[in-house]
């Protein structure tokens, strides 16, 4: 069974934003995966990007540079 641990959860305004983030991270070899956005983050039922917390600054920078609009960065134990 997968153990719980701290993750950096990036929420987006649109599903397209989450999928663009996935494409970018795959292309650049950045670890992470798409998940259903946790209920504690929002009442929206979209997708979020879950990554190791140490990648937060990298993700913030890369998303800003390529124009992917993140709704928020959250550190959660999942």
């Amino acid at each position, binding site marked *: *069974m997968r153990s719980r641990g701290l993750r950096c959860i990036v929420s987006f305004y649109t599903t397209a934003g989450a999928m663009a983030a996935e494409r970018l991270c795959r292309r650049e070899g950045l670890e992470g995966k798409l998940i259903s956005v946790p209920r504690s983050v929002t009442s929206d039922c979209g997708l979020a990007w879950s990554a190791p917390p140490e990648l937060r600054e990298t993700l913030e920078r890369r998303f800003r540079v390529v124009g992917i609009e993140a709704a928020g960065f959250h550190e959660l134990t999942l």
Partner: protein
Amino acid sequence: MRENTFVRRYGLIILAGVVVGAAALILTAAGNPKNMGFCIACFERDIAGALGLHGAGKVQYLRPEIPGIVLGAMLSAFVFREFKARAGSCPASRFVVGLFVMIGALVFLGCPLRMVIRLGGGDLTAVAGLLGFLAGILAGIVFLKKGFSLGRAYPVKMGEGFALPAVMLGLLALLLLAPGLLKFSEEGPGSMRAFWLISLAAGLAVGFIAQRSRLCMAGGLRDAFLIQDFTLLAGFLAIWATVTVGNLIMGNYSLSMTSQPIAHSQHLWSFLGMALAGWGSILLGGCPLRQLILAGEGNGDAAVTVLGMVTGAAIAHNFGLAGNADSAVDGVYKVGGVGSAGMIAVVIGFAVLLAVSLLHLPGKEEA
């Protein structure tokens, strides 16, 4: 630890499914049509009829369940500080897509929620609808993967978020204070109704728990296919299991392809109608139930979508697009289904959804 993880992840959504399923059973026992304890498409169609937006005399009643759902979701959003007035995500496109989602659902004779409730009554004609719904969702996912988006919503003034809840309060006021202004069916599905207070209470409960759990028929299947996450799908399954068990206990379960309540045997058009509803729901980001919940949370785009669905219901019945149920006349079983106008409307619906999908793909510089 494993149990705790399961409860944390699936507990609320399964509870929501059980509440919705139980509410459907109670409403049917209290007077709503069989296998139609809850149906967002049918109830919005009945409301359109009650307001005189269409003239189909058998489907006119201001169903309190719909205002209940919106107001229950609003109450929950307020209690948990999640009410956010937002709008601006392609409202015109959402209106049009909502309109065709409704036409697709009425060709099948039910929204995705009623599809599950029909399955829970043993209605095997709904299997074609389920397969169509899956196909429509897969079509929507293809466009999501290509970057489809109606764009983000932006914060707006609070009053915008109250628009649909206020309309719903107005509808309730009409029903209770000025029923003479409304149309009421004297026969057919519209004449079958639970006492208004039971309907309103059921709607409030469903709206509240659906807001907390994010219950969504389309979202559940989208997440299962797209990211192999089965959380929302568990709610879908919980509704089906609850309704099945309830119908078995109450002796209302009838596993058959024929003589099902308010259902028809034109399986191809059940498939295509729900494919249209499924595809449209993915483009909208949620099924008809979810649109009501989002509108209750203050989402103006979802409110516009709901108005599009009500318009779609009026169009469906004014132009003879909706499916007709199978019936028994003088002991002879008469297969219902969809007329030529309904078939043409479904084809037009697919063309419109394709156009909306293609027009909202990213340009080359954005891809």
